[in-house]
């Protein structure tokens, strides 16, 4: 009897990885627990152990192969004593083919080449390259740390581990342990220490491993960082950035899957950025680090590995408070931000196929918010829906609806619909989790509803 050894999923969001190294060869006998191979994901290199005992009868994927899909066979394990030549190999993909396939699927991401209409710095002549959001964030921090000695990064696993999600990869090496600082697991304490350091003129970047853990620190963020400028009559404030992944990752349950955009958007004194694309992640983070105010910078784990066009512009900055129009349309305005944009853009494509031209606005920052562009767009399309992954009550969509109603009531031909996550703690089961998040179908259906189609 033979068993296929499959490419393992080593993190909740892993879809593919690199087979960095085989630690066994064909013909080796292994027992459960023996290390078979080193698998590299975009976050880490991990050892992969045997579950059963037997003989490695065939290795299907050679060392160094990239883009191996989770659950695809990487080796064949035969029961001890079995003759390798007896094996039925017809189902096994041959190695060359596997490699070729994975190469083709390498930039597996939707490459976001939709016209960047509101990016004044981009022209047709601007050279672009593909960058992941993860690389963009790292580059932004590195550039700003080179520019200003007072900028430093602090958080759990940011230095020696290279970042829990590898966002800070290489920073310790370049900037040293004075400026890239591993903290103990004490969010409340280190958020307070960083805020105090900012009062004294440093420019801290605080990485929360995820924003779920920032709830431990929210008193320091809201009461100390956000309010001190006002309470001191303008004498001192907190020029700093709190950043990290926000919102649902995948299959990590209720306590690790929450979108905090509307929580922080509620607070005067904070700025809130929620980038979707890599170029916005970079340009907004650079703006955030230079900003003299506390900035909440909400990233998304699912987006970290996605590639987007990155303009070849030196010192690329995206100002706060300017929405980006990803698609021009006349029939309905879809407003979103962060990972909500993936549903908005997919829905817009499906709608176009059905003859509805949606205009898609990426707010990029929620504080400040680009009300001007919102009103302009809604005044043109006369219909609007909003898309976000957060809970429905007191959502960003609720706020936008109220604002549009107050300022563009006469332009509206239909009530605004807010597409949001469901009003439930995030379930673990895969099917329920999918149901709990906002879906492209819901966005399409809402758009059709406001178009009375």
């Amino acid at each position, binding site marked *: 009897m033979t068993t296929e050894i499959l490419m393992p999923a080593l993190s909740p969001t892993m879809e593919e990885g690199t087979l960095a190294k085989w630690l066994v060869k064909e013909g080796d006998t292994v027992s459960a627990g023996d290390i078979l191979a080193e698998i590299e994901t975009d976050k880490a290199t991990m050892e992969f152990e045997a579950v059963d005992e037997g003989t490695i009868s065939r290795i299907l994927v050679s060392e160094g192969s990239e883009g191996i899909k989770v659950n695809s066979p990487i080796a064949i394990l035969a029961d001890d004593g079995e003759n390798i030549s007896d094996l039925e190999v017809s189902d096994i993909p041959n190695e060359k083919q596997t490699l070729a396939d994975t190469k083709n699927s390498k930039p597996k991401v939707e490459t976001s080449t939709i016209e960047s209409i509101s990016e004044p710095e981009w022209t047709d002549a601007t050279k672009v390259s593909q960058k992941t959001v993860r690389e963009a964030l790292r580059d932004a921090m590195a550039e700003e740390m080179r520019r200003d000695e007072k900028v430093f990064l602090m958080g759990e696993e940011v230095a020696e581990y290279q970042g829990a999600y590898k966002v800070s990869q290489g920073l310790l090496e370049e900037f040293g342990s004075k400026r890239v600082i591993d903290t*103990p697991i004490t969010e409340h304490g280190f958020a307070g220490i960083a805020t105090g350091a900012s009062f004294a003129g440093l420019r801290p970047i605080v990485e929360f491993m995820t924003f779920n853990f920032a709830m431990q620190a929210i008193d320091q963020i809201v009461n100390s960082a956000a309010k001190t400028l006002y309470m001191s009559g303008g004498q001192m404030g907190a020029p700093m950035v709190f950043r990290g992944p926000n919102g649902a990752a995948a299959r990590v349950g209720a306590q690790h899957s929450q979108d905090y955009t509307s929580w922080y958007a509620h607070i005067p004194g904070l700025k809130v950025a929620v980038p979707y694309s890599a170029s916005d992640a970079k340009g907004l983070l650079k703006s955030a680090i230079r900003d003299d105010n506390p900035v909440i910078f909400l990233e998304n784990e699912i987006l970290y590995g996605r590639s987007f066009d990155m303009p070849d512009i030196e010192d690329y900055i995206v100002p706060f408070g300017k929405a980006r129009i990803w698609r021009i349309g006349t029939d309905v305005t879809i407003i979103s931000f962060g990972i909500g944009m993936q549903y908005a853009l997919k829905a817009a494509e499906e709608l176009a196929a059905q003859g509805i031209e949606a205009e898609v606005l990426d707010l990029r920052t929620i504080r400040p918010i680009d009300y001007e562009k919102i009103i302009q767009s809604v005044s043109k399309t006369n219909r609007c829906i909003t898309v976000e992954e957060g809970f429905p009550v007191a959502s960003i969509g609720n706020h936008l609806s109220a604002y549009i109603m107050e300022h563009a009531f006469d332009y509206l031909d239909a009530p605004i619909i807010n597409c949001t996550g469901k009003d439930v703690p995030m379930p673990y089961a895969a099917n329920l989790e999918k149901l709990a998040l906002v879906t492209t179908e819901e966005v399409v259906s809402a758009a059709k509803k406001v178009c009375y189609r």
Partner: protein
Amino acid sequence: MGSRKGSKKTNVNAQELLSFYKDMLLIRRFEEKAGQLYGMGLIGGFCHLYIGQEAVVVGLEASAEDGDKRITSYRDHGHMLACGMDPNGVMAELTGRAGGYSKGKGGSMHMFSKEKNFFGGHGIVGAQVPLGAGLAFADKYLENNRVTFTYFGDGAANQGQVYETFNMASLWKLPVIFVIENNQYAMGTSQLRSTSTPDIYTRGAGFDIPGEAVDGMDVLSVKSAGDKAVKHCRDGKGPYILEIKTYRYRGHSMSDPAKYRTREEVQKMREERDAIENIRSILLTGKHASEEDLKSIDKEIKKIVNESAEFAKASPEPKLDELYTDIYA
């Protein structure tokens, strides 16, 4: 130098003794005036008086050098006066006027002075402790050999973030002095009812932070402990804990009738341990000053305090457009 029972021998000359007397008296009279203005409805909200605890901040300020930083809780008037902030600006902030340190937008609990390195004025119990360590973090980062005095009370000493901060301050050898002003009551709860180990200074041991208890009713003991702690920090040895045993004569805030302790307890403290009376007696018995000298100081202080009250009443309320300023830099 004359010395009353309990005073440690310190290198303090007559000039310094007089300045301690003056500084403590200024806080006492200022706070009494603030209490009066509160009673007249000129000061609103919360108002936490420092009366009884004057020796703590005056003693420690005597150990500080230019550029050293300080941060405290909402019981902050004394700290501001002791570090040289203008009584007019403090009192006008209490009355919520444009002439206040925060243009009237902070109030009793939220005042700051960049010039004097006073970093507030914080209303959430214990929150100033990591903030203070953060100030020290900046000093260490900038390599400027400054020290931060981070004040908090026996109540705050039970907050979790204090211990998170102890851990990091020790781990990173931050030049911060944790000053626990143990005035025996966390609002209405006596320390014995709220604190499992009454000697709070020993709690640094688990983090390898040295600590000591200090008689907070004796400004000379405080000064001497302050010197030691400052030297420890400036020598790069990391944080230091001073638990200063003190006593507040008034309620937790103006609205506190203080039913949780007896009138006799307060009276006994005032009569036997008062820090200002203590230093006054040292000055007189040691013939560092005459009754006349002290009377003239009293008069001078009274004048400063009265002027601050007049300024605070005369200063206009903030302009209405101040509502929307200083939210973003």
